[in-house]
């Protein structure tokens, strides 16, 4: 137990000291996670709404596929994107492998199914009277759907937050596609993995504290928006 307590104390000191390595990892993590979340939301939310609001023959299959994609291991996504971005891959010429952009691409693939599924669940859980009420009051189709989105906005917001949570906490994609390059593609999670393997347990724990703090701040932000 002494080891844990002394490591935790050292981690707190490191966290408070704003070591450049910690700051770099935090900034990179937040930047790639935010980028991936934005693109995942732009793709996943409309997809979830579309699937939720329309009826088509293969709907059940599409929903099953979306559900399955939520559970895809991050290393599998990393492997797939690696295949495309590596020198021999079809997109190798773009030189994106081991860049923050590669991590964003992988992050989008991880977060989009989550934002889509959460949005779909929000539509399914919405009060069935919303759209007919809007229509009978004279709304056109777009205003009626816009009204529905307004009524389920907390569910949509939760979709974005869950997508962000998936990306900021994953390690497989960041490691395989970013390469864990210090000061460039090293994120909080890859730094934790590296420092712990080097025996720098306190440093890894410091990053863990920062990661938890970020998660807490994001959730506090969500609660704040829900109270407004």
């Amino acid at each position, binding site marked *: 137990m002494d080891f844990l307590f002394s490591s935790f104390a050292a981690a707190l000191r490191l966290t408070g000291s704003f070591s450049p390595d910690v700051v770099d990892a935090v900034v990179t993590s937040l930047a790639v996670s935010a980028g991936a979340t934005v693109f995942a939301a732009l793709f996943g939310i409309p997809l979830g709404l579309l699937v939720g609001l329309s009826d088509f023959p293969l709907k059940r299959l599409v929903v099953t596929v979306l559900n399955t994609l939520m559970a895809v291991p991050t290393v599998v996504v990393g492997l797939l994107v690696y295949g495309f971005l590596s020198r021999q891959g079809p997109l190798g010429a773009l030189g994106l492998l081991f860049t923050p952009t590669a991590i964003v691409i992988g992050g989008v693939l991880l977060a989009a199914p989550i934002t889509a599924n959460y949005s779909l669940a929000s539509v399914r859980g919405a009060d069935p009277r919303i759209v007919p009420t809007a229509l009978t*009051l*004279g709304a056109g189709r777009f205003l009626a759907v816009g009204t529905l989105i307004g009524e389920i906005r907390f569910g949509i917001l939760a979709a974005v937050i869950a997508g962000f949570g998936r990306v900021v906490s994953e390690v497989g994609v960041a490691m395989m596609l970013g390469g864990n390059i210090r000061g460039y593609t090293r994120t909080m999670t890859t730094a934790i993995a590296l420092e712990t393997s080097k025996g720098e347990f306190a440093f890894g724990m410091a990053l863990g504290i920062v990661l938890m703090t970020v998660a807490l701040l994001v959730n506090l932000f969500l609660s704040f928006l829900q109270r407004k």
Partner: protein
Amino acid sequence: MTILYRLNSIRKCYGSSVVLDIDGLTIVDSRLYTLIGANGAGKSTLLNILAFLSPPTAGEIFYAGKRVDWNHGSVEEPRRKVTLLHQSPYLFEGTVHANVAFGLKARGIPGEERRRTVEKALAIVGLQGFGDRKSRELSGGETQRVAMARALALKPEVLLLDEPLANIDRETTGLLETVIASLPAQGTTVVMTTHNPEHPGRLNGESIFLEGGRVVPRTTV
């Protein structure tokens, strides 16, 4: 007297079950109709069709002499002349004012005129000064009255009411009955469903009896 609705051989089916089967029905303007029938008689289904929210499975409907085209773009025009007030109305999140103003905003009514219309509509249902109240903080009776104000603000050609007087207190019932009974004289046709056999007489309305999805001369319910 102008014929507003003419229904020809209307059928509505869900799967293999036929819930509405009306050979012919005519509704003229500035009158009050009460749709009377037991649960499952097809009253709400008929109201949804008359509100142009749900197309019939078969048959045709003429509104103000024009055959209704159920394509999304085309049906919006007649739909804007008709407002349906559900039995358990939904109020959008936000203020009472925003709710009552919703349809006016959708019609592009300017801000000041919208505000005046909202206040007038709230006054009709006895809710002066309720504009800033949150819709989620209203009682059941207040919700019903706000929904009525929201419909009245639009001055629709036809107001369709699905059990508007169910589950509300006696005071609110009296107020809403007075408001509803006054509408035909102001040019609004009212079609309302009810279980109460006294309503047609009290509201000076004409009865349409539905039984098993069919219009019948008189029902035992």
